[in-house]
């Protein structure tokens, strides 16, 4: 079963890869989706198997082959299926399968569907390696592998230089993170003498290290750099918005539901190590909270529908890091799951819209699409309600738990709650704005475009995801809420992964505080959503006026705080300039000159000596004579 789970996507990749010239999207799509279906069904079977085991021994280990073994270092191609990786596997294969189906409709006009589907399968294979690997090295294989497939898919339409550049940017930014990850692995091995997760977990010292410079803190910080790259956190988030250059289903699968959550998964997987380094966790929480806020603020003013969703993803990932940073690993995983559903849903929905609008992504040219695309609209509403945290929708439960933990956990702080709450308010605003500009209000669609509902193969995945976005929250009902939902167990997911968590007591805290905070956030969110509705549906001329009024703030947000520009000015351009100088100055002027200097001196010496070689035989004879006489003289003298 395990083998079909892992290798079905690989086989799909190989089959489609070898017939990459094929233009038949149906065959290619069926092969790829078939592989995903096999994989998903295997995952379900394994899930049933795993759930049937006793609670604290829910582990399936698979050893494939020996990989790198040198002296006492050993990293094998070995995999572990436990509640945590099982959850991830189900999300990846399930959402992945739906997105493969959706792609069959979305990519039906593309020239190279076989290539597209092979890349997509390749990605899923790597993602499975990442979550299933039983040691850091296998995780790193998947870690780089997903980056690689993401590179290929972002630049899928490579004829456009901007898209090719976006792919490159993604890979290189990820590489910066990967370098940090590598150093993290090195330090961890130095500390524990192993890279196996289970062995690391058993060797972590019981006493947390409060020093900034202790190896364990440094290891966690370096690993977190890896997570910053992969999961788009400050300061390495810049690649994710650009990654929207790829086909929209790719954005849904890789840049919303699965790959970008790898960093969160990694921290949850290494929770014993991170718990032993409170300082590192504090950094994680702060970076997460700031990212959530910053990205949400940028999302407020973007006009490209996919860019809004991209910044929203960055922001939601920030929430997840906030959660794991304060030690609420269960809440982090819960939000990871619900976010995978509703964000995949919204990305696919936006894909459906873009498809209908003939590749138009600018929301200023949309509006009133509700009546043309009823199913897309309806499912999108589910996603919208989920993300802004409308009560009883999935996002409500998971986000509320995170905010509560940010406040209540011993490693939390009231400021973290404030930042999170403000980000939630922003989220409600920009998502409502997106809904309003796209689906509601008056139509601004150009007259030559005739939007239409997407084909069934695209709408079915939307409906399934919409269902999940609405109801998945019941798996992660926070303790506080469960007290008013009689009979419903709280935190099913958290209990499911509990055997893997290091002991860290949070407690439940006061219900009154929890409900006060929840109510406060809810009120603000409703106000904010209402404001957005007022501005973009009822008084559409208001935004323009406000943009004029707050010109500088507006420009700052629209240009994303000029971070990209700053990177170019402060880092990339100086580096290139330095390289040019190194080449044209150091290589050519210093090193080559120095060697020329030496060789020239040798040449000069030769030039002097060559006078002796006059070519005149008589002179040579004279030399012989002089030599002879000198020799005789020397011998006779003694």
């Amino acid at each position, binding site marked *: 079963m395990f083998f079909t789970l892992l290798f079905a996507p690989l086989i799909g990749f190989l089959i489609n890869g070898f017939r990459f010239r094929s233009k038949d999207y149906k065959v290619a799509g069926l092969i790829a989706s078939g592989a995903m279906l096999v994989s998903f069904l295997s995952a379900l079977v394994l899930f049933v198997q795993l759930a049937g085991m006793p609670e604290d021994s829910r582990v399936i280990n698979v050893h494939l082959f020996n990989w790198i073994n040198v002296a006492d270092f050993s990293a094998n191609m070995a995999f572990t299926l436990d509640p945590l990786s099982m959850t991830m596997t189900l999300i990846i294969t399930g959402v992945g399968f739906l997105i493969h189906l959706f792609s069959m409709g979305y990519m039906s006009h593309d020239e190279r569907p076989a290539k597209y589907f092979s890349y997509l399968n390749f990605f899923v294979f790597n993602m499975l390696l990442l979550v299933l690997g039983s040691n850091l090295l296998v995780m*790193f294989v998947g870690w780089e592998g997903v980056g690689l497939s993401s590179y290929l898919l972002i630049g899928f339409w490579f004829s456009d230089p901007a898209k090719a550049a976006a792919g490159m940017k993604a890979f290189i930014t990820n590489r910066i993170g990967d*370098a940090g990850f590598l150093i993290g692995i090195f330090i961890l091995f130095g500390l524990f003498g192993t890279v196996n997760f289970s062995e690391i977990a058993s060797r972590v010292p019981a006493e947390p290290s409060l020093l900034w410079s202790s190896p364990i803190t440094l290891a966690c910080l370096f690993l977190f750099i890896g997570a910053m790259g992969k999961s788009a956190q400050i300061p390495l988030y810049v690649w994710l918005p650009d990654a929207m250059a790829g086909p929209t289903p790719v954005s849904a699968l890789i840049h919303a539901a699965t790959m970008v959550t790898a960093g969160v998964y990694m921290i949850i997987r290494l929770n014993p190590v991170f718990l032993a380094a409170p300082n590192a966790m504090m950094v994680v929480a702060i970076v997460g909270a700031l990212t959530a806020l910053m990205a949400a603020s940028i999302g407020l003013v973007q006009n490209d529908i996919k860019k809004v969703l991209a910044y929203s993803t960055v922001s939601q990932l920030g929430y997840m890091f906030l959660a794991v940073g304060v030690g609420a690993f269960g809440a982090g995983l819960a939000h990871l799951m619900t976010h995978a559903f509703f964000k995949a849903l919204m990305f696919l929905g936006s894909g459906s819209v873009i498809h209908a609008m003939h590749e138009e992504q600018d929301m200023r040219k949309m509006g009133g699409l509700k009546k043309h695309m009823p199913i897309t609209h309806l499912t999108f509403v589910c996603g919208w309600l989920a993300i802004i945290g409308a009560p009883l929708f999935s996002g409500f439960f998971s986000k509320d738990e995170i905010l509560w933990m940010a406040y209540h956990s011993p490693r939390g702080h009231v400021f973290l709650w404030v930042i999170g709450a403000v980000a939630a308010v922003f989220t409600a605003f920009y998502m409502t704005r997106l809904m309003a500009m796209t689906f509601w209000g008056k139509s601004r669609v150009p007259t030559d475009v005739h939007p239409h509902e997407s084909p069934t193969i695209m709408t079915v995945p939307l409906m399934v995801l919409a269902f999940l976005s609405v109801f998945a929250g019941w798996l992660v009902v926070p303790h506080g809420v469960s007290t008013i939902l009689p009979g419903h167990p709280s935190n099913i997911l958290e209990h499911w992964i509990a055997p893997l968590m290091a002991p860290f007591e949070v407690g439940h805290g006061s219900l009154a505080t929890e409900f006060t905070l929840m109510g406060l956030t809810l009120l603000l969110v409703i106000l904010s959503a209402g404001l957005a509705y007022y501005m973009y549906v009822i008084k559409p001329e208001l935004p323009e006026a406000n943009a004029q009024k707050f010109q500088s703030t507006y420009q700052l947000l629209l240009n994303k705080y000029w971070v990209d520009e700053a990177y170019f000015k402060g880092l990339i351009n100086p580096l290139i300039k330095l390289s*040019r100088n190194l080449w044209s100055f*150091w290589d050519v002027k210093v090193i080559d000159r120095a060697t020329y200097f030496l060789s020239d001196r040798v040449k000069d010496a030769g030039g002097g000596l060559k006078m002796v070689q006059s070519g005149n035989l008589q002179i040579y004879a004279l030399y012989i004579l002089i030599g002879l006489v000198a020799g005789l003289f020397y011998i006779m003298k003694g």
Partner: protein
Amino acid sequence: MLLSSLIFLPFLFVLLVLLAPEKLTRPITLLGTVIHFLFSLRLFQSFDPSTSDLQLVEKVSWLPELGVSYFVGLDGISFWLVLLTTFLTPIVVLASWTSIDKQTKAFHISLLVLESAMIGSFVAMDAILFYVFFELSLIPMYFMVGIWGGENKIYATLKFFIYTMVGSLFMLAGIIYLIFQCDAQLGELSASVLDFYRLNLAFVDGQFISPQNVLFFIFCLAFAIKVPMFPFHTWLPDAHVQAPTGGSMILAGVMLKMGTYGFLRFVLPLYPQAVTAWTPLFMTLAVIGIIYGALVAMVQVDMKKLVAYSSVSHMGYVVLGLFAMNMYSLQGSLFQMLAHGISTGALFMLVGIIYERTHTRKIADYGGLAKVTPIFAIFFLIITFSSIAVPMTNGFVGEFLILFGTFQESALFGGLAVLGVILGAAYMLWMVKKVFFGEEGPIFKKYNVNDMNGREIAGLVPLVILVFWMGLFPGHFLKYSEKSIENLVLNKETYNIRVQGSAPSALGDRREF
């Protein structure tokens, strides 16, 4: 006799090439090198990886007055390098099939002689014999660049030749000194490396002029130039740019490894105290080389020059691993030598393939190549990923082990070297983006560019197979060198290789071969 046959078999084909008509040169050489490769596979049978002993030894007295003998043998350090040589040569013949169109006989004879010299230098266990093969390999290369090179070939040839020659001449002086030391300490003139290992060379802490120190620097100079290490690297880009495709493949694929091999065979075991004393210096140079090579590669306009600078960077990793001197890093270095041989050889071949069609290597002339030649693009991407060390390709295992091993010795150097991983991705992907993606470049209006043909695919497929094989099952490769490296690491101060089947000491015993 196996090793001697491996060394001298190419000469048989030289004879055949000489006698056969000109148009049969290529098939004969191809057949010959393939036979040679298949023959070299017999090493798997004859070589015993479970010991660090020197195996398949042959020893015949050559210049008894100087203690010089024809002494060859194989241990785990040499094993894969010999196979790398025999494996790459047929591919070089395939890569040169159409690009060498004048004096084909001379080219292929040079290639065969070169192959012989390279194998010889990897198995020679007599310092003078090693020196002879080391220098012999220069001569065919000199002709390959000088006759079939680009427009600036004479300059490049001279630079390449003189640079390497200067270094190795000093080494010759060092070898002679060691031979006389053998006389003084062991009572007999000997150029055998095994006897060198038994010498006790004086080393005085804090004093620069001591025999061990001076010898260390002399040998390091020779090998550092060959590798090439920063700051002796400037001959490499020039030589590569001017060399024909086949020449570049051999140069980057095998000849550079003769430098790092020299470090492993001579410098590390012979001068343990000097190595310890100067490790920081050499690690610094290696790290500078890694980062410097990568940075300079990033701003190149010529594809071949870019690959050449990437070699500087990659070989920097190898040297770094050598000086970190633990199991991980040394195994990693050996592995990286092979990996670099495969992937850089393939990169040069790919650049050559496209150059043959468009007669330009300027990156700016290209664009959108992936659309015109999809198969070529797939191969190029695979090799690119191997070059930037994506896991499951050969590049990753070597780089990982080196960085890992170095980090355990020195977090500073390990950490700095990791930066090279980022820069490596930057320059390679930048080139891929400019050449393969975007709109179709101006060059396609001038030439009709075809995708790869069967011959070229046949040459690259074995390389690609190895890329993944080495990446997925590094154990198959590492196990052959494990014992030898272990011996080196555990006995830094008293390094000694035993000859298989003989008593460990006593000079007299070894004379019988």
